[in-house]
């Protein structure tokens, strides 16, 4: 049953070192504030799952939170590489990063299977790809009726899924809309879920058949306006494309990355302070 709770408490109580954690959001509604709080609290040995490990996972990986990554596309969308992700994989900094690699179709199906309480997902996939050669968790099964060969992968069952959504009501029911990605499946596949929201309202006023997560399917709802930044929340904020580009330079070296994370995340108390410090940095840059 959802509690309305500060993000700090939710992360502290719900995410344990060593957990398998999925922070989802497909470009839209990426839970950056929650990612920062995980870094701030020094959570470690996490197995991180995410279809598109972009800036949020680059920050978690560079901060040493992750022991393993399960993913299907790792890059800075529209910009280029994720330098911290590559440094961890190629050089083992700040620690070696094990990884298990899939395609989007497979991971999306694995979340569906997880939400459906099935141990594996079946898909037409991977034919002709080398991925099954390097990932022993891609197997092939036969249809018991036609004999056709199909790909199978284990379902994803995170200990904790974290998402960002537009609205919650005071009882903890959650509404998200627009590009909803795999968020519903990721929440329902998980043992526990944390949802940060732009707004807490008296009534959701959800349209019929909207993407609503009932309060009893969520462990904690945290009111964190702007918590997707630099990603966006449709109807509330715009994606800051410039920050995605700026990240390329910030993350390129270990030193610039660490300085940024220390100043903006480790040395801030919460997301509100992050926003203040970040605004100051931006202003001083403009002044220069």
């Amino acid at each position, binding site marked *: 049953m959802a509690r309305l709770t500060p993000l700090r408490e939710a992360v502290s109580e719900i995410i344990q070192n060593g957990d398998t954690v999925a922070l989802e959001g497909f470009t839209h509604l990426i839970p950056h504030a929650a990612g920062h709080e995980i870094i701030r609290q020094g959570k470690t040995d996490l197995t991180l799952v995410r279809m598109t490990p972009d800036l949020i996972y680059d920050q978690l990986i560079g901060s040493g939170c992750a022991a393993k990554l399960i993913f*299907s*596309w*790792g890059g800075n969308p*529209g910009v280029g590489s994720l330098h911290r992700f590559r440094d961890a994989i190629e050089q083992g900094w700040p620690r070696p990063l094990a990884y298990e690699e899939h395609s989007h179709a497979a991971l*999306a199906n694995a979340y569906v299977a997880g939400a459906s309480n099935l141990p594996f997902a079946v898909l037409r*996939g991977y034919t002709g790809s080398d991925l099954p050669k390097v990932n022993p968790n891609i197997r092939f099964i036969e249809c018991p009726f036609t004999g056709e060969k199909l790909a199978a992968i284990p379902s994803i069952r995170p200990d904790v899924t974290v998402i960002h959504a537009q609205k919650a009501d005071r009882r903890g029911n959650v509404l998200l809309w627009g*590009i909803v990605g795999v968020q519903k499946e990721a929440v329902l596949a998980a043992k526990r879920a944390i949802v940060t929201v732009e707004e807490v309202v008296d009534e959701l006023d959800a349209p019929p058949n909207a993407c609503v997560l009932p309060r009893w399917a969520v462990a904690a709802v945290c009111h964190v306006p702007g918590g997707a930044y630099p990603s966006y929340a449709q109807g509330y904020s715009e994606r800051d*494309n*410039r920050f995605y580009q700026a990240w390329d330079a910030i993350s390129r070296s270990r030193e610039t990355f660490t300085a940024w994370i220390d100043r903006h995340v480790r040395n801030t108390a919460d997301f509100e302070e992050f926003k203040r410090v970040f605004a100051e940095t931006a202003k001083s840059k403009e002044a220069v």
Partner: protein
Amino acid sequence: MDAPAVDFTATEIMTVAASRLLKDGTVCFVGIGLPSTAANLARLTHAPDVVLIYESGPIGAKPTVLPLSIGDGELALAADTVVSTPEIFRYWLQGARIDVGFLGAAQVDRFANINTTVIGDYANPKVRLPGAGGAPEIASQAKEVFIVLKQSTKAFVNKLPFITSAGYLDGGDAREKAGIPGKGPAAVITDLGILTPDPVTKELTLTSIHPGVTVEQVKGATGWDLKVSPDLTTTAVPQTHELEALRDLLARTAKAHGQSGGGQSAGGEG
């Protein structure tokens, strides 16, 4: 006034040539970056009823500016509907409802296989690329595939270090034999010309060359001994209305995103 344009860049003719391959009414699964630019140009010119599907969920997207990422709000706002990402992959792509998969790539080989995973050894990569995204299943399940990328010996290699997404595998009927449902890559559109698979061997062959480019240039930008079609044609130059539409689109996009060339990056998702 519509007439052949006289002044255009190699990227512009590549984008226009790619856009022309999309027929009106086609249902197209669009990768971000160059494919998205070409597909939207088609929609804004000769193919107003092309249906654009992005893996993030929008079906029938009609963005007024190019998305910088696969999940821009712009894609959702004017779409016919927005479904979940699992539904896109399950009901629409795997459901065999996609006519054309429009992909970018980091590397292709002579049989139009695609690598977006690693350069070097998988366990000890020289360069770690973003990975598969939606491409393996787009490449295998769309009825046909167009690939658009700039031509160079780094990108057009004889043998890929890693096949992320299947083209024609070892050529001939290898793709069919592997049980892959879609027909495979129908064309690779580059900044130098258009390569299409030989009907029998499935080896990529230069069948159209952009005006002002020499066959030697194209061969020099290819990592294998590129075959040239005896019926080699010259790519029709962009019409002024196509070029204007493209430049307007990119200008609108740059203005909206506060930067230049949004959607033109080569390392696009999916």
